[in-house]
């Protein structure tokens, strides 16, 4: 009897240590899994992209005569010129990303029939919001530069 009791007492700390180790390794593995997932997330989220730069030059102001609306499909912007005012309107449909084309009344999307007015406001179809306007600047070399990372308010023109 006494023997059993001694045994129980002597094994007690051992079990405690084991349990501690089990908790420790469990915690370690869970921690590694969490950190690993986080690291994987940052790994697969590209920091630089290989696609087109979002900031690009489009040419001199006089290449865009007054009253013209010239869509540059590869860049997915439409350059609008009215008098001495210039603006860049996105031609990526806000519905599901198809390329829209200028039409008589503004813009028209070929995918699900969204229509926009000349300022890019939705006039029909499933598109949920207006087309983005991008900041246009005049570089020292006298060329217009569009920055698609810089969305500005609808109706904001650059005077040239």
């Amino acid at each position, binding site marked *: 009897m006494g023997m059993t009791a001694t045994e129980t007492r002597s094994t007690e700390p051992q079990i405690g240590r084991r349990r501690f180790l089990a908790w420790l390794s469990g915690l370690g593995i869970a921690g590694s899994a969490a950190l690993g997932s986080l690291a994987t*997330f940052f790994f697969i*989220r590209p920091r630089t992209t*290989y696609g087109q730069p979002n900031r690009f030059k489009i040419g001199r102001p006089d290449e865009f005569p007054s009253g013209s609306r010239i869509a540059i499909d590869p860049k997915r912007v439409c350059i609008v010129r009215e008098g001495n005012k210039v603006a860049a309107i996105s031609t990526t449909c806000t519905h*599901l990303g198809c390329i829209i084309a200028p039409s008589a009344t503004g813009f028209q999307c070929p*995918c699900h029939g969204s229509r926009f007015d000349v300022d890019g406001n939705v006039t029909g179809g499933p*598109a949920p919001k207006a087309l983005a306007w991008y900041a246009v600047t005049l570089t020292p070399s006298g060329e217009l530069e569009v920055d698609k990372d810089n969305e500005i308010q609808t109706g904001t023109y650059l005077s040239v």
Partner: protein
Amino acid sequence: MSKEQNSIGKSVVDLPANVTRSIFRNPLPSSDRGRAATSFTNFFLHVQPVRVSRQALRPSYTMGLGLISFFLFVILTVTGVLLMFYYVPSTTQAYDRMLDLRSSVVFGVILRNMHRWAAHGMVACVFLHMCRVFFTGSYKPPREFNWVIGVCLFGLTLLSSFTGYLLPWDQLAFWAITVGTSIAGYAPLVGKAIKFILLGDATVGQEALLRFYVLHVVVLPLVLTIFVAVHFWRIRKDGGLAKPETEAAPKRVPVQVEIQEDAVPIAASGSVAVAAPVRKFTIQGLVRGPLIKVGKLEEDTVFSWPNLLIAELVVLLLTIAGVMLVSFFFNAPLEQPVNVMHPPNPAKAPWYFLGLQEQVSYSAFWGGIGVPGIEVLLLLLLPYIDRGKEGVGRWFARQRIFANSIFLFFVLVNIYLIVIGTFFRGANWQFVSPF
């Protein structure tokens, strides 16, 4: 040990038999004991139960839909690995490789066709299999979690098809993925991030092609395989396919199996055969370990070998035949190479997403994220919501008329949307009549 047994001559003579016996632990079964033993001595057969209910074997009950889904997945793996020998996931080469499959690769066309049609077939069969499981009430306890795994399998199947869709890099591929990933972008909060990570860039391009390729050939098949393995394992652990309640519990009587001890013992070799006496066993005498909880089985069962095995082979044969036949007569489509400047009008997603696209044309958020999200959530929670125990294991049981009606309604609405999106939508997504 006699000298003769070790002689070279005898080794040579016995070689075929020895090799065969070393590979197949069990001879072709001729007795009930042998039939039981085949199921646990063979790696490929140990997935099978020893005995299987007659109902599970009835073609009109399961319609073999789960099995067909699995075999289509096997066909997809084989043909897909072969296609990988020629495919290059590059925006400048992918399309040319598709043309090469047509013009210069021997059997290239038939392999591509098989891969494409099997993929469409798998989406359809997995969906129909889900309907079968629902209409027979087979998601009731203890099968709730296998239903959840099934829903994941359905999602993985759709994702596999969707990622494969981009790989030919033709107009169809490019615009379907452009539309599809834009839908993902509508998810609240995380949508933009998911879209960006999926595409690896702001728009569909080289990064997206590479990412979809890796997902399509490695990540998704691997995950799918693991889920299928768990799915199958749980079918066994849940006691096979669901059975009607009236036939299940009450009639559990021990099955008497008459056993003629095998003349050739399983493990030992070459010793003198002893004519063994005929003995009577109940089934638990045959099945070791925790495989069967009570040694009692329903009377209405038969041995898997050969009954289940033959059924499976027939389904496999029919599946292969079906895929081959379609692939001989219909070529997988290949449209013009990608032209980022000119979306086809209308730009349509793959047919199984056209219901989604049709919904999206009414409201991008609700059609693309809101309603489908609620539907998936309902599917996942279904076995925990519907706890009724009646009408399990029978098609359209009267007790389940409410649940079945709701499900049928959802199925019909989705089929209706797909039909509208596929046949009745023309340029600018205007309503057109195909007739």
